């Protein structure tokens, strides 16, 4: 198998295969040690009674999976995550694209402005979360001082269950809108100018040009950005950890629940089962998304 894979290398002996294997080995060993092994180890653990700080474990069959499907917090975390991902990606995409439309022209200080907008994206989410805590503080926070200034009773961002998820969401949007802005700018810049001219001569109104030229031609890149953001937002943990902690019903995302179950409560078996369920869901979602992207790319002949 090692020699046959090399194109044009017909007639080479097996020794070349060993050389190639030696080159690939380090990466392969790391991959197996940190990706493949944990995956299977996790799968095995999910069928056991393993707990942190408890000696020994026994096979428990599918009991952990039954628990995962019975106990409400697991499905609640999935719902919270889904809601969070949906709202975050939609807000960021919409805001980023609108900002890009406004910035898609030449003006003095554009580079400086873009750089300033990108700073939140460069900071670690945990730092952003901690920083946001200062702004969100019920009594001394800058945000509530501003809101009170308008004569409105400010919400208790970090303690009112109705506002906690919003607080997390705002930080995420703050961090990632610039990313969508950047991609949107690139997408807008990639639409050939002569298409706009052709549309103008074809008597298209500004709205029609936007709807029939700008949007469809930007769509593939925007879809890719949305997909990237979705996969990232699915893992949301740091900001939740910083603002409410991992065990808050209102903001408990899948990652927060995994952390809570595995490391705080020590339920390794059940946590592993949950991780497996989440993995299957994520694979399903990713497959649907990449299929859609492929379809978009095939439909989009940029060749003309």
């Amino acid at each position, binding site marked *: 198998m090692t020699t046959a894979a090399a194109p044009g290398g017909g007639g080479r002996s097996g020794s070349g295969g060993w050389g190639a294997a030696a080159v690939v080995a380090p990466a392969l060993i790391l991959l197996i040690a940190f990706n493949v092994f944990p995956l299977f180890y996790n799968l095995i653990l999910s069928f056991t009674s393993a707990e942190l700080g408890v000696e020994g474990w026994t096979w428990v069959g599918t009991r952990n999976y039954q628990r995962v499907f019975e106990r409400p917090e697991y499905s609640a975390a999935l719902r919270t995550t889904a809601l969070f991902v949906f709202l975050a990606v939609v807000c960021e995409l919409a805001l980023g694209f609108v900002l890009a439309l406004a910035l898609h022209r030449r003006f003095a200080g554009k580079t400086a402005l873009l750089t300033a907008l990108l700073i939140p994206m460069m900071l670690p989410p945990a730092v952003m979360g901690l920083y946001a805590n200062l702004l969100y503080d019920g009594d001394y926070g800058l945000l509530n001082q501003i809101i009170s200034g308008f004569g409105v009773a400010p919400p208790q961002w970090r303690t009112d269950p109705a506002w906690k998820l919003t607080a997390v969401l705002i930080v995420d949007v703050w961090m990632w809108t610039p990313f969508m802005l950047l991609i949107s700018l690139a997408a807008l810049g990639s639409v050939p100018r002569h298409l706009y*001219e052709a549309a103008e*001569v074809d*008597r298209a109104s500004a709205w029609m040009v936007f709807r029939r*030229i700008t949007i469809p031609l930007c769509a593939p890149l925007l879809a890719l950005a949305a997909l990237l953001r979705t996969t990232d937002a699915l893992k949301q943990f740091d900001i939740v950890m910083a603002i409410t902690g991992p065990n808050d019903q209102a903001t408990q995302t899948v990652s927060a629940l995994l952390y809570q179950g595995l490391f705080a409560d020590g339920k390794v078996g059940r946590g592993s089962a949950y991780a497996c369920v989440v993995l299957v869901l994520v694979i399903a979602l990713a497959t649907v998304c990449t299929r859609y992207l492929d379809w978009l790319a095939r*439909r989009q002949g*940029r060749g*003309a």
Partner: protein
Amino acid sequence: MASIDIDHLVKVYDNGFKAVKSISLPIRDKEFMVLVGPSGCGKTTTLRMIAGLEDITGGEIRIDTRRINEVEPKDRDIAMVFQNYALYPHMTVFENMAYALKLRGMKRAEIQTKVDETAKMLGLTDHLPKLPKQLSGGQRQRVALGRAIVRKPKVFLFDEPLSNLDAKLRGEMRYELKTLQQKLATTAVYVTHDQIEAMTLGDRITVMSAGEIQQVAAPTVIYDSPYNRFVASFIGTPVMNFLDGTLTGADQPVFKLPGDAAIALAMPERHEFPSFAGKPIVLGIRPEQLSHGGYTALPKGGSTIPMQVTLLEIMGDHQYVYLKRPGFETPIVMKCNAHHRAAVGETIPIHIDTTMSHAFEPGGDQARNLTLPKGFTRQA
């Protein structure tokens, strides 16, 4: 039905570059007008101002006597074919062609009929459900043409539509364009840097250079009676030969070359010659006005000069022979029958037919042609 009046048109870009310097050009109804010139001569800018894609700095453009300077492109009733086709990549051929009709609020059935009709005319019927990326370059250009034709506009604008195609396709599309133009009989403005396209397609040609009109005339007039040295050198392949020398003799004018050689001048228009007698002039001879003395008879009113062969380019039925002679700085090109044998290094007698050649004032591109009939105008 549409005539276009370009009246003292000026374009100055924001960076101060004067792309078009006050040109005036009336384009007649149903005329196929070709704007030709080297890149940067202002031809595309002029076209884009007619289309409304470029603001007009000064002067006026009128379509059918109506001033259109301030009219939006979409309200000018023009159709434009772009160099890179500018097809909407996410729409099928049918949708590309139907788009403008749909924007006008035309009924679905009517759109279907019109697009089908146009597609049939262009041989695109089988390609209607395809996307532009599934088509070849020639087919794409045909879709771009179809998109323009289907609207039945007042004016067609073409911006170097064939320059992205290979030589063979370009020839085919040129033929098709010409046929279409005869069938549709719509006013058209066609920009190209290709003089063959200009000569073959144009009812009239406008030769432009450095933002100014050099000459406007029918293709044969441009070729036979170039107004100045620029037009003479721009139109024709290989380029016209220019020889520096002195004009002598009054009744029988003779062109004296450096050294002892002399060429008798036999062009019919000689009214400018007396004022240039004894002064330096430039003789312009097209390559086909030279012939191999060993195979041809001396033309009436011609002269023979021996020259040395430096290079041969055999094109099949004809060949280009590059010649030199002491005192000539640049090589002289002769176009002759490929069977007229000449060897590199050999010195052969060259017949020069001056009945169709031209004499110019000394100077650059703007040097006037001295052998034009009295009353000949730059714009005809």
